């Protein structure tokens, strides 16, 4: 489907405000009379609180109030489970220990909030930290995932018998039987390191209680304004209509901004109501590292069983997943891992077990990639190890096992994050892979480029992997489309935006349906007074769910345009023509009525419609898919690496991607490129390091290295390989693309590094590869 706008690289409508410094982000919002909050955070990762004395802080000029857990009385309680437990999976165990808004009795991670200081300025609020006396008895910290799982471990939650947060086993076929029949079985233990979302804008929250009108207005850079509205109204005993959540411009999300029931969104509205003053809090970067949620951090114990010719008979993966100190976000991440391990290949027998474990670390929730990267990494690496063991090329083994277009849709039998059995719906997995091999010129590289470089004393390596991206999960999203009397169109949705071009792509869909100029469609996102139903921005679901809702709503409006015009023009509907911004009788341009005028006529006050007919050129629609979709693709990378410095240089990268129908290819490319930079960062630069005492050692950009412009591939090629079959999924055939780029760089780059050192037999078992860790791997084989 293409239209005047749909499917075309339309320039973004939101850019001008952003480019000129006119867009307002959370820290740009000022409400008269506002006070500032600062959070005193724990230096200890695990400790019992003996005493917190704030009396001196209260004496400091400019300090208005200081709160510790005790001051909140009954209001203090553990937060809700933001995502339900995996009850749909038989035999699963889940121990809910949800986030507390402020530590009481016990501290469970370094950075957990101990006191909230409210002052005239942020500078004063932070000064007051020096006045607060915190007395604790420190406890040994739980840091290592595998040790934490053992019965002998120190406990993060004293009331549980162990640190087990969850245990979920899923099996299709029978792995042990398959193993018996196998010619080759390969087993490995692999680490997938802990990384941050690290949006350039930190989190922020402003709560303003209007005592006169009894309304709480909240500005928050959240990915889920409706969840915030729901939890604030519940906590304060207000009607939802009394809580108005507004999302300003948001400086990137990438997952962590979906988390609620944190200190700010629970306590600041309460404090604002108490003090009857607006309260603003904006996180600093260190706080973001310490206490905003992060992800990855799994240890996989994998086994793959194969026939002599490389055919996979079975796969087993028992993995430890760090949930941090609490598990409010349920099991989205490890369930994504389970579905993605086998999502590209024919795996008749699959056994997978999640061992989700509490540790004295910040809470783990989805970050772009969200469990998918981990699953794909585990499978792709195991294929590489198996291929080496059997003397096959990494290409052959993949060709042999990749799913072909005619095998889809395929029910894998594994239940995913949406608690629905996973279906690989559409796509040409093998075709993607072949296209990628061609684009990266695999054969030429192996036959000419690599040997030639070798002669010149240069090391080059190549890696090619396949991936899928589970996208567009339910439950639903919605929107309202209205033609106003000026002829301009407004779409409102509860979905919030963090830079994904929603203001443009939704407008493209609507503009085509209503035949108006795209710039005449104004999209309002994430304002609960405009639209109050929906779930939130995550799992690459905006284009599919909100996009489809926009299509459905604008189709309804279109139908109303025709019925209203038919009355206004006095002709049957099939005689009505919808021109750009006006309606007329077919063949009689003189009869044209501007759309705005028609909108006025659609008001029963003075219009052509009779009572009983829904007024206005306006309609609301919702869309919820029966199950998530699956984007798919392949990635190839060629890199050079110097044996002395061990710094990889990405010479060329190709991504082949099938994200279904594209609303705007410019935006899709941007999503892929951004995702890829994150995947590169996760593989070569970024890592959250906790020491054995649970201290985060990388809480600034000096130590947590972000990928920069010079770290990107010298050449990056994007190939869209959209399978027509996706059209059956939803009316627009959209799958989603937000996370795709972040998924394959890990296994592709690691395979290429191993290839560059093939003569040495280097084997890499982790995701985070600083030059010094690559050097370590080299030394290890040299010493063998």
């Amino acid at each position, binding site marked *: 489907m293409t239209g005047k706008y749909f499917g075309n690289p339309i320039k*973004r409508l939101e850019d001008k405000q952003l*480019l000129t410094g006119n867009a307002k982000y959370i820290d740009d919002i000022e409400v008269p009379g506002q006070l500032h909050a600062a959070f005193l955070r724990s230096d200890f990762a695990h400790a019992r609180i003996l005493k917190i004395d704030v009396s001196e802080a209260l004496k400091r000029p400019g300090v208005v109030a200081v709160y510790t857990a005790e001051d909140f009385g009954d209001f203090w309680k553990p937060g809700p489970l933001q995502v339900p437990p995996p009850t749909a999976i038989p035999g699963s165990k889940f121990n809910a220990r949800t986030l507390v808004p402020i530590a009481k009795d016990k501290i469970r991670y370094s950075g957990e909030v101990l006191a909230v200081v409210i002052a005239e300025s942020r500078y004063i609020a932070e000064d007051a930290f020096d006045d607060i006396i915190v007395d604790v008895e420190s406890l040994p910290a739980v840091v290592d995932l595998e040790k934490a799982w053992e019965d002998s471990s120190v406990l993060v939650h004293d009331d549980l018998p162990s640190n087990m947060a969850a245990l979920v086993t899923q099996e299709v076929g029978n792995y042990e039987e398959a193993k018996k029949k196998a010619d080759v079985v390969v087993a490995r233990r692999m680490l997938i390191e802990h990384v941050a979302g690290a949006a350039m804008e930190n989190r922020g929250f402003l709560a303003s209680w209007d005592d006169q009108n009894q309304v709480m207005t909240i500005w928050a850079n959240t990915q889920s304004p409706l969840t915030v509205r729901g939890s604030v109204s519940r906590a304060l005993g207000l009607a939802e209509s009394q809580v108005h959540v507004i999302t300003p411009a948001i*400086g990137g999300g990438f997952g962590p901004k979906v988390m609620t029931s944190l200190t700010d969104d629970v306590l600041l509205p309460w404090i604002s109501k108490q003090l009857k003053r607006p309260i603003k809090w904006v996180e600093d970067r260190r706080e973001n590292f310490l206490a905003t949620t992060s992800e990855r951090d799994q240890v996989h114990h994998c086994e793959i069983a194969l026939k002599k010719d490389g055919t996979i008979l079975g796969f087993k993966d028992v993995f430890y997943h760090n949930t941090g100190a609490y598990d409010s976000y349920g099991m989205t991440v490890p369930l994504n891992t389970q579905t993605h391990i086998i999502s590209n290949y024919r795996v008749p027998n699959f056994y997978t077990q999640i061992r989700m474990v509490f540790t004295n670390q910040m809470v783990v929730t989805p970050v772009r990639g969200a469990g998918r990267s981990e699953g794909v990494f585990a499978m792709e690496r195991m294929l590489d190890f198996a291929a080496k063991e059997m003397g096959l090329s990494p290409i052959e083994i993949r060709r042999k096992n990749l799913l072909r277009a005619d095998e889809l849709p395929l029910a894998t039998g594994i239940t995913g994050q949406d608690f629905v059995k996973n279906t690989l719906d559409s796509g040409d997995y093998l075709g993607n892979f072949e296209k990628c091999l061609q684009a990266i010129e695999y054969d030429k590289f192996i036959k000419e480029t690599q040997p030639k470089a070798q002669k010149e004393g240069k090391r080059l390596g190549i890696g090619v992997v396949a991936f899928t991206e589970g996208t567009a999960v339910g439950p639903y999203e919605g929107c309202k489309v209205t033609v106003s009397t000026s002829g301009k169109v407004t779409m409102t949705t509860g979905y919030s935006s963090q*830079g994904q071009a929603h203001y443009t792509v939704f407008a493209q869909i609507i503009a085509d349906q209503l035949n108006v100029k795209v710039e005449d469609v104004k999209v309002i996102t994430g304002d609960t007074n405009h639209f109050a139903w929906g779930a939130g921005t995550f799992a690459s679901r905006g284009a599919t769910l909100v996009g489809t809702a926009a299509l459905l709503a604008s189709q309804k409006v279109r139908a109303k345009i025709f019925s209203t015009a038919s009355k206004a023009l006095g002709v049957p509907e099939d005689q009505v023509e919808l021109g750009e911004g006006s309606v007329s009788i077919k063949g009689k341009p003189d009869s044209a009525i501007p759309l705005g005028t028609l909108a006025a006529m659609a008001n029963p006050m003075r219009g052509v419609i009779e009572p009983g007919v829904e007024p206005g050129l306006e309609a609301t629609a919702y869309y919820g898919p029966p199950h998530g979709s699956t984007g798919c693709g392949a990635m190839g990378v060629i890199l050079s690496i110097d044996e002395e410095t061990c710094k990889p240089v990405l010479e060329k990268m190709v991504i082949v991607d099938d994200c279904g129908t594209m609303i705007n290819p*410019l935006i899709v490319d*941007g999503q892929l490129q951004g995702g890829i930079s994150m995947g590169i960062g996760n593989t070569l630069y970024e890592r959250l390091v906790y020491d054995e005492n649970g201290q985060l050692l990388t809480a600034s950009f000096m130590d947590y290295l972000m990928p*920069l*412009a010079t770290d990107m591939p010298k050449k990056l090629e994007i190939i869209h390989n959209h399978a027509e079959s996706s059209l059956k999924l939803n009316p627009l055939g959209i799958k989603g693309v937000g996370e795709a780029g972040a998924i394959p760089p890990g296994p592709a780059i690691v395979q290429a590094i191993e290839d560059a050192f093939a003569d040495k037999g280097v084997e890499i078992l982790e995701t985070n590869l600083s030059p010094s860790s690559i050097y370590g791997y080299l030394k290890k084989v040299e010493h063998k």
Partner: protein
Amino acid sequence: MKKLFPITVTVNGKVYERQVEARLLLSDFLRHDLGLLGTHVGCEHGICGACTILFDGEAVRSCLIFAVQANGHEIRTVESLGTPENLHPLQQSFTDKHALQCGFCTPGFLMTLVPFLEENPTPTEDEIREAIDGNICRCTGYEKIVEAVHDAAEKMSQKK
């Protein structure tokens, strides 16, 4: 009460006289005292480049400078470039090439690139990447930013 120091700073051509605390960061001064909110703060420790401004014509990080140090100096922020109705050619290329997503890092990139393009009107791709190597963008993967700089350089040198 903390001691206040009088300062006089020219920002985007306008002279401001203010009393500030010695510890007030220039970034906070611009944003909260002068209300010039286009300068963003991403890390407060000089790494991300989001807070980049021009200090006597040179791109510097306003989170690493105290407001008092700006006394008597001339500052330009993103607000001095174009307006939504009349974008600066670099801003125009940024939107044409889709070089921004969330836009949070963008003012810092623009303020880094304006003096760069003045000094080097026809940069190579490597030079562009070097020039923006001190600015972090989490959204775009930098590809389209590099494209936009090429585009702007071409258009700006044609105009001359």
